[in-house]
């Protein structure tokens, strides 16, 4: 592929993911409202939230490190853009990936959480430091089961570390199928933690530590942070479906409907889990991920390798 196409590809994928991400946020808020017997916000609400934030002034506190404080949101945003580009490109052109691009996407997707930690630590606020510490502990907790579960999916289907070869490839045998299903459940829980949704929104706990690492952000940096979260809301389900559920295909009407249905189903599951659970403490979350999810993921890996 001609490298000159890289920039338009990046811009196109970013724009597509922003639109998809804001729509996914709307689906999340609407389903939350229905579950609580209310009417939710209109469809353009997440977009208007970001627009409004772009119009407010940016306040930088005196005790904050300006460079880290202002650059951290951009870091997260850039990482999500590149990850989104990889995922979209691989769907349009399955041979275009390279060996190991699954791992590259995984690495890129940890960067937004690191950006939150950097931003929170640079804020000069003790509550932000508490939030950043909690985010660190959460990352240590959920990365391991996520890796094991993804390995389970790869071992059970194509045995090849390339995203393109995971799309629309079926699993090899019954044990591998059970392994992949178990892995899917584990990864959904890890995605819940990565997105910062209840029950694992400990890092940005609202009433408790006044939104943790985000406490000192306002205006445009906050808009970029929320935009990054909205894009993650789109990118992570796409990533998960690519690895575990055969990706997206828009060849025929039936395939297109199935793809959209898969995506909406994952979003609805995330939202329903969010609405029916309380927030857990950080030590409970770590115990959950290390002592329940990791053995489950290891079991999934063993089943897929049979």
């Amino acid at each position: 592929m001609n490298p000159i196409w890289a920039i338009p590809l990046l811009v196109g994928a970013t724009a597509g993911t922003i639109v998809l991400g804001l729509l996914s946020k709307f689906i999340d808020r609407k389903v939350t409202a229905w579950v609580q017997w209310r009417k939710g916000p209109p469809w353009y609400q997440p977009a208007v939230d970001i627009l409004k934030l772009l119009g407010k002034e940016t306040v930088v506190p005196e005790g904050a490190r300006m460079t880290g404080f202002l650059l951290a949101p951009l870091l997260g945003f850039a990482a999500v853009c590149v990850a989104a580009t990889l995922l979209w490109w691989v769907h349009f052109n399955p041979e275009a990936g390279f060996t190991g691009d699954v791992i590259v996407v995984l690495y890129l997707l940890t960067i937004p959480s690191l950006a939150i930690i950097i931003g929170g630590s640079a804020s000069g606020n003790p509550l932000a430091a508490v939030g950043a510490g909690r985010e660190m502990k959460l990352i240590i907790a959920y990365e391991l089961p996520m890796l094991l579960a993804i390995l389970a999916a790869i071992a059970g289907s194509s045995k090849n570390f390339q995203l393109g070869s995971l799309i629309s490839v079926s699993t090899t045998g019954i044990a591998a199928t059970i392994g992949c299903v178990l892995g899917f459940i584990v990864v959904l829980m890890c995605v819940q933690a990565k997105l910062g949704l209840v029950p694992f929104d400990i890092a940005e706990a609202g009433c408790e530590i006044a939104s943790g690492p985000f406490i000192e952000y306002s205006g445009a940096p906050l808009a970029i942070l929320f935009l990054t979260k909205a894009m993650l809301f789109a990118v992570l389900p796409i990533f998960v479906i690519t690895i575990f559920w055969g990706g997206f295909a828009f060849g025929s009407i039936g395939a297109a409907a199935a793809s959209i249905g898969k995506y909406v189903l994952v979003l609805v599951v995330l939202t329903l889990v969010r609405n029916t659970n309380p927030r857990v403490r950080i030590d409970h979350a770590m115990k959950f991920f290390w002592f329940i999810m990791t053995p489950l993921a290891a079991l999934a890996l063993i089943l897929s390798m049979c």
Partner: protein
Amino acid sequence: MGLKTWALKKSIWLYHANVGACNNCDIEVVDCLTPRYDVERFGMQIAESPRHADALVVCGICTRQARPRLQELYRQMAKPCLVLCIGSCACSGGIFRPCYHFAGPVDKVIREVDPEAIIAYVPGCPPKPEAIIAGAIKSLGALPS
């Protein structure tokens, strides 16, 4: 009306501060989020940090201890922002006006920091959630376009 003001009107985030109230007004403010009155359909939600907020919802007379803290809260908010005084205590002091701890009604305290603050008054003891929503929506018209 520019895009900035339109976006601000469609998505107001509220930060709730109690500066010496009996809690009745706080309960009514939280009631607005419940399914019966549902302010989320107007785009309003509770902001956790004053820096994220567009409207400071104040309940209570401003007590002597809370006065410098309320002024600091207002200063920390990212402008442009609104102030909503909920209840007769916040509007004028209510029945607690001659009391020993009264330190000025909320609008006087905030105008010390910012003489051009946009302040909306919602009287009542406590005001009904319908009145709070009406006051919030009316105050959107006073935003500079």
